[in-house]
């Protein structure tokens, strides 16, 4: 039975792996009758480097979150992000990219013409990027698709079972991320056609991940002991390291979204940095005023809040506007995690909603306030540049993304819950998700506490759960 299952999997994988080959064969048959747009080596080099930088953000996020988790949950928290680099990459290559950027179906979703990267070759696709190979654009977008579901894990950390999480992020990427990416960035997408501005993913990445995180946190429920036990970050240097990697990678995220290496790239790069610096300062100052001490976690969190807030606006606003966006972003994200969360009583473990949901929403709105065609002719003027309609357009985009994220996440989690428990039991939470979900311990305090069982022997852990009877009876 097991062998037959493995054989079926093997055959299916073999078939799927031949899809790109078939696609290449068809590409070869197609004549290059039309004059292809010319590849620019500088642009291509920069976007490839940006892709690597954005990929590094996901391990950065893993460290940022991992340091804030408790010692017994650090590995599981890291794994939530790290595994996305594996599973979402495959999903994107097989069908995610086609759904998000493929030829339009009713302004809602891409069709499956690019299934298995069929037709996605090294010639540029002028619809998206006329100066870089289509595959470079595809993989640049892939790293965005990877980090977005990983952000959600910050809301459900320390209590969501890994198998349920894995099912969730694949379904979420398919039914929420891919459609929203198509709405905002895809040719024919309804929000793009409406004129909604989102330079690098304020809506597509941050709003939908943050809102989905909040909904997931509400459905799964609070961590055992939330509000009665201290749930204090176990390693803030790890968190700061993660924040630094995020800051570094975000230059690829935002500046790379210009899909070139030129003047607009520079604008996005500078704005990214200034907003981040401003948000770090505003978070720290507000915290200092309220609690009497400027905290390191506040500085790291403020920086991330600034990065989030400037993301949709970075290619449309002036440097001074970016500073204002950052200052406000840092302060409101601080208030969201320290006041709003307490008042409403939800358990957003590591504040994915407070930082990404709120910061992304502010950034999308701020784009409608501060955008200027003098900065980017391809954009639009915002309220402060004489165009109040842009605020309305941005609000429509915000509302649409909030709704699909909330409703979609609710449905996905309810369906998954039919097949698989979402929440780790109280005993599993007491023991920690590192041991119960992954069979590992991040910090072995006392290595002499155990003895080898032998190669290939299934491990059992003395945590009072899931211990195999055969091992229980061992003398």
């Amino acid at each position, binding site marked *: 039975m097991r062998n037959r299952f493995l054989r079926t999997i093997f055959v299916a994988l073999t078939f799927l792996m031949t899809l790109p080959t078939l696609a290449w064969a068809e590409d070869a048959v197609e004549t290059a009758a039309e004059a292809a747009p010319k590849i620019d080596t500088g642009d291509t080099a920069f976007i490839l480097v940006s892709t690597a930088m954005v990929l590094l953000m996901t391990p950065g996020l893993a460290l940022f979150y991992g340091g804030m988790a408790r010692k017994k949950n650090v590995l599981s928290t890291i794994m939530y992000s790290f595994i996305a680099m594996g599973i979402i990459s495959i999903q994107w290559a097989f069908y995610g990219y086609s759904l998000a950027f493929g030829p339009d179906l009713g302004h809602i979703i891409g069709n499956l013409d690019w299934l298995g990267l069929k037709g996605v070759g090294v010639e540029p696709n002028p619809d998206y990027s006329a100066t870089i190979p289509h595959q470079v654009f595809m993989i640049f977008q892939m790293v965005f698709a990877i980090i977005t579901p990983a952000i959600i894990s910050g809301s459900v950390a320390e209590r969501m079972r890994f198998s349920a999480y894995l099912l969730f992020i694949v379904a979420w990427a398919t039914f929420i991320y891919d459609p929203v990416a198509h709405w905002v960035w895809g040719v024919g997408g309804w929000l793009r056609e409406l004129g909604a501005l989102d330079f690098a993913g304020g809506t597509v990445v941050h709003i939908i991940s943050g809102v989905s995180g909040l909904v997931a946190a509400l459905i799964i429920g609070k961590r055992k002991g939330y509000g009665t036990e201290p749930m204090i*970050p176990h390693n803030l240097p790890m968190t700061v390291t993660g924040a630094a990697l995020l800051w570094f990678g975000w230059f690829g995220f935002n500046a790379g979204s210009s899909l070139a290496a030129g003047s607009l790239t520079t604008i996005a790069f500078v704005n990214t940095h200034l907003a981040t610096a401003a948000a770090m300062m505003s978070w720290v100052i507000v915290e200092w005023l309220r609690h009497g*001490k400027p*905290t390191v*976690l506040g500085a790291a969190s403020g920086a991330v809040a600034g990065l989030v807030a400037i993301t949709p606006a970075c290619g449309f606003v002036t440097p001074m506007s970016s500073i204002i966006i950052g200052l406000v972003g840092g302060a409101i994200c601080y208030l969201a*995690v320290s*006041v709003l969360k307490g008042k409403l009583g939800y358990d957003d473990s590591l504040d994915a909603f407070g930082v990404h949901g709120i910061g992304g929403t502010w950034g999308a709105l701020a784009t409608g306030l501060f955008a200027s065609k003098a900065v980017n002719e391809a954009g639009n003027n915002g309220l402060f540049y004489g165009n109040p309609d842009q605020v309305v357009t941005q609000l429509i985009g915000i509302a649409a993304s909030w709704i699909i994220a909330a409703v979609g996440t609710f449905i996905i989690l309810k369906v998954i819950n039919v097949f698989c428990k979402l929440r780790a039991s109280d005993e599993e939470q007491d023991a920690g998700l590192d041991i119960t979900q992954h069979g590992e311990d991040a910090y072995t305090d006392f290595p002499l506490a155990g003895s080898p069982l032998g190669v290939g022997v299934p491990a059992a852990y003395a945590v009072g759960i899931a211990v195999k009877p055969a091992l229980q009876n061992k003398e």
Partner: protein
Amino acid sequence: MTKIECILRPGKLESVKEAVNKCGIQGMTVTQVIGCGLQKGRTEVYRGAEYSINLLPKVKVEMVVPDRDVESVVKAITGAARTGEIGDGKLFTYKIDNAIRIRTGETGKAAI
């Protein structure tokens, strides 16, 4: 023989070790512990959430000394560990029946 067990401020460990060595006592066991007594805790802030940390880090030092040295060692420890503020710690003494050096099998005072 008497066992002396004291709970100290972590910052006082070095001066206590030095003071005890001057009394001719070399053997001791040191453990990092947390605990509370009369000392108030401290407040920590994480993203605007305040936590009262009321179990504070201390070090526990244990040593077994001959009865004749107990008074001088206790005096040395208390002198070295005292700041005069709440939180200086506690010292306890216990009577010990016997001690055995595992390597040689020696017992009693010869083993400490």
